[in-house]
């Protein structure tokens, strides 16, 4: 509460309401109004989220900014919001990315502008809702609702194969979440009629139900993260989505899965998590190494970054299931940093795509001759994606690798291969696209980035470097929460 104001509700509903207004008043005849309104709305969304950080007490491991009202009595469902050190950075990340999306689509989106921007704003609010919900039904509502705007965004403003990608995205994610719904209803009965996630944390459960619940959650979150082998929807969705859609997908929506593991799987089924940790680590390592190799072979820049996302998110799940504080904190840092880096990478590809309408690496070459400023920014992000020390990409990966060594040397060996693979596929792509002589007449016509694009990339470059050099504010926030989670997991629920 800030001045007696329900802050979390504001963070959730402000973007949604602005989005609805944009939808209602915007028409194709006056796109500028929709653009400015969305920009102002999303910046306000970020500003109202700032007190969450400033007034957050990092020494507490319990939920803060709690709001709890009865939503519908019949099933004892509550409108229960609250955040801890895990969800707060993710909400900030989301509120931070949203204005950037609005700016990124400023001149590019010319068709049905208000629907495009409205969809993004509504989604931003919904995602905040996912991170802040402490009631299972509320969580599920936001979780599923986030599919709708993304479905529309991919399908309406996407590339040639957008319909296939949109439906695949929707059904894949729905498949995962439906089993989660059953697990939640099951927990409702076991807990004698409560949908409170915090109650579930304390609920004693036998091993078999724990494993079944874990598997049900795993399917939902693994699809979203996405983990190998249920990652195949991601490259399709990324390739077909418009730039803004790709950015949100990579920077925000993938984090929903990671967040789910920390909020549900680990604390609700700790024994099953311990029991299945090796399996999860194995799946994560396959994602890191195998998908890294797959990324190496991509001809399409967006596809390459999409696979690199899967590989990096493999690091996140790896960190979670090491079940030590370095691992989990490192994975959290990795999530935030991946939000900046992958977002920036997709924006860079978007900059090129807007000019030449091609994502094929082979269509480019020698871009540095025509776009030196862009090449410099792209370099920063490529290096961050490869995990260069001093960028945010390094911090998370380093922490996770440190955590892995504590568990098993060979795990760490394979995990560390990402440093080689990541550097290979990112820098090789960078070399082919940016360096060399001007490859063809199309590249000859390229113009360097505009002020709008410069601002966009500069903000992200600053974030990447700042987090790389001084990650303490981020790790400080989550320390208590992660410590509490790990302590909670040491007690068996059997």
């Amino acid at each position, binding site marked *: 509460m800030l001045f007696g104001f329900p802050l979390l509700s504001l963070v959730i509903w402000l973007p949604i309401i602005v989005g609805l207004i944009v939808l209602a008043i915007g028409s194709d005849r006056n796109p500028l109004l929709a653009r400015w309104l969305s920009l102002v709305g999303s910046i306000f969304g970020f500003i109202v989220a700032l007190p969450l950080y400033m007034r957050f007490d990092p020494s507490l491991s319990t939920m803060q900014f709690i709001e709890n009202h009865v939503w*519908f009595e*019949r*099933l004892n469902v509550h409108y229960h919001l609250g955040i801890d050190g895990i969800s707060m950075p993710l909400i900030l990340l989301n509120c931070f990315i949203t204005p950037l999306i609005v700016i990124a689509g400023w001149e590019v989106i010319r068709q049905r502008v208000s629907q495009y921007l409205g969809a993004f704003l509504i989604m931003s609010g919904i995602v905040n809702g996912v991170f802040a919900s402490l009631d299972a039904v509320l969580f*599920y509502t936001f979780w599923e*609702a986030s599919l709708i705007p993304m479905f529309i965004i991919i399908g309406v403003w996407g590339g040639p194969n*957008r319909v296939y990608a949109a439906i695949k995205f929707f*059904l894949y994610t729905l498949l995962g979440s*439906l*089993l989660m719904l059953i697990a939640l209803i099951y927990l*409702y009965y076991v807990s004698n009629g409560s949908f409170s996630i915090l109650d579930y944390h304390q609920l004693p459960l036998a091993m078999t139900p724990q494993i079944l619940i874990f598997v049900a959650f795993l399917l939902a979150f693994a699809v979203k993260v996405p983990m190998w082998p249920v990652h195949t929807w991601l490259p399709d969705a990324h390739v077909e989505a418009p730039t803004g859609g790709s950015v949100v997908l990579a920077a925000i929506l993938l984090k929903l899965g990671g967040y789910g593991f920390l909020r549900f799987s680990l604390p609700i089924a700790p024994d099953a998590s311990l029991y299945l940790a090796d399996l999860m680590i194995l799946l994560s390592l396959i994602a890191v190494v195998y998908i890294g190799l797959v990324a190496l072979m991509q001809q399409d820049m967006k596809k390459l970054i999409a696979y690199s996302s899967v590989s990096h998110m493999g690091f996140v799940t790896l960190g979670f299931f090491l079940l030590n504080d370095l691992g989990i904190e490192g994975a959290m840092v990795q999530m935030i940093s991946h939000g900046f880096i992958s977002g920036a990478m997709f924006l860079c590809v978007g900059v090129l795509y807007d000019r030449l309408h091609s994502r094929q690496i082979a269509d480019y070459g020698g871009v540095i001759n025509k776009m030196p400023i862009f090449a410099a920014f792209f370099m920063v992000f490529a290096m961050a994606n490869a995990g260069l020390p001093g960028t945010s990409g390094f911090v998370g990966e380093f922490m996770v690798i440190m955590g892995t060594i504590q568990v098993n040397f060979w795990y760490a060996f394979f995990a560390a291969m990402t440093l080689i693979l990541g550097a290979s596929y990112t820098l090789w792509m960078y070399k082919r696209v940016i360096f060399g002589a001007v490859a063809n007449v199309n590249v000859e016509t390229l113009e360097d980035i505009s002020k709008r694009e410069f601002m966009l990339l500069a903000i992200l470059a600053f974030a990447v470097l700042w987090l790389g050099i001084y990650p303490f504010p981020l790790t400080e926030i989550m320390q208590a929460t992660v410590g509490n989670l790990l302590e909670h997991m040491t007690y068996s629920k059997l």
Partner: protein
Amino acid sequence: MDFLTPDFTPAYPEIFLLVMVCVVMLTDLIVGERRRYLAFFLAQLTLIGCAILTLTTFSSETNRTFSGMFIDDAMSDILKLMVYATVAAVLIYSRIYIAARGMFRGEFFSLALFATLGMMVMISASHFMTLYLGLELLSLSLYAMVALQRDSTVATEAAMKFFVLGALASGFLLYGMSMVYGATGSLHTSKVAEIIQSGAIDRAVLIIGLVFIVAGIGFKLYAAPFHMWAPDVYQGAPTAVTLFVGSAPNLAGFGFVMRLLIDGLGELVTDWQGMLVILAVASMVIGNLVAIAQTNIKRMLAYSTISHMGFVLFGFIAAGENGYSSSLFYVAAYVLMTLGAFGIIMMLSREGFESENISDFKGLNQRNPWLALIMMFLMLSMAGIPPMIGFYAKLAVLQAVLGVGYIWLTVVAVMLSLIGAFYYLRIVKLMYFDAPEIDKPISSGMDIKVLISINGLAVIMLGIFPQTLMGLSLYAIQQ
């Protein structure tokens, strides 16, 4: 023997309706071609009058009259109010559609009101005979309504199928009821329940009777494998009649099952539970899988109805207050969604053009964004995506079924509803991702536009605030 005048108060709405139907018929005979709208207004007025009468006689007590053949309790009042609202909405949605097809006549309205009367009797029946009477009154009116466009061969064919299969189902029901009568010696639902409870009966006869009754109910509730008539009737009937057939009678069907299976044969719960499980799973499998292959939207919605009825049966399977009230909530949500969906189909139809193919929805977002948004809400609601009401209906039913331990049933249900999501999404895809084939603006009456907006908003608002309807359903069952 003294003749005792029965207490008419609980049946005031029915009596009023019957009188008014006659008035509607007579006025239609007297007034000329140009004053046809009088029948429409009179019909609406009748429904409002019925609603007022129902509200004024509303009490949480249970009143029986006509020697216990007629019952008036909270459930019947709430169901009846829902029926009035549904029928009123159906008439408004149909207004322009039927006018363009020469069906805007007194017959349409009087038949619709007769059907409504049938539904009210079904809802308020506490005697096997009254139940059957109500059902037949409803069914016969519906047969006639389907065949109202007598020049249309598809409609006539649909009416034929509907009639033959419907009569067969009624035969099943009667046969089952006679067996129950043979076993228990009574036709009063409450007495039948008492006698079964006492245990002094021939169980074998009773169970055989139950099988026939469940089969009859299966016909009336579109449950597979007794669903064969539904797709043909949905497709063949004029859309306005399809809407009527597909909406309000489901509410009455719910009441019918409550009176017959729960009030009358509630003691046999373990027996009919097993039968309903088969019906429910078969409905979901057939409904969801076959719907994918449909290109006709009315036919697709028929299969979608079949799968939704599987969910409604889930509530009965779960039994108990929790189960029945979830079932009622589901039916109410379903009726709301069906109303909207067919309302939009009728708005897309014009004079001489039936909007029947799924491809007619192409590019609706460019033709009319608001209508497309409403249709998207409706489709996502049917697919069970929050925050639409369809999701909370599914949640309520699934929690009820899981509560009695049928975990496998819930897993089957959600997997099949995933398949179902595909064909609902296809409509959204057509509306939003494809370019329109026809670029004509959609013209319609103001009342229809307002109603469809209210309908669409209700689907999302009752989803965001589901307590009202959920609480009402629970109240109806608890009393």
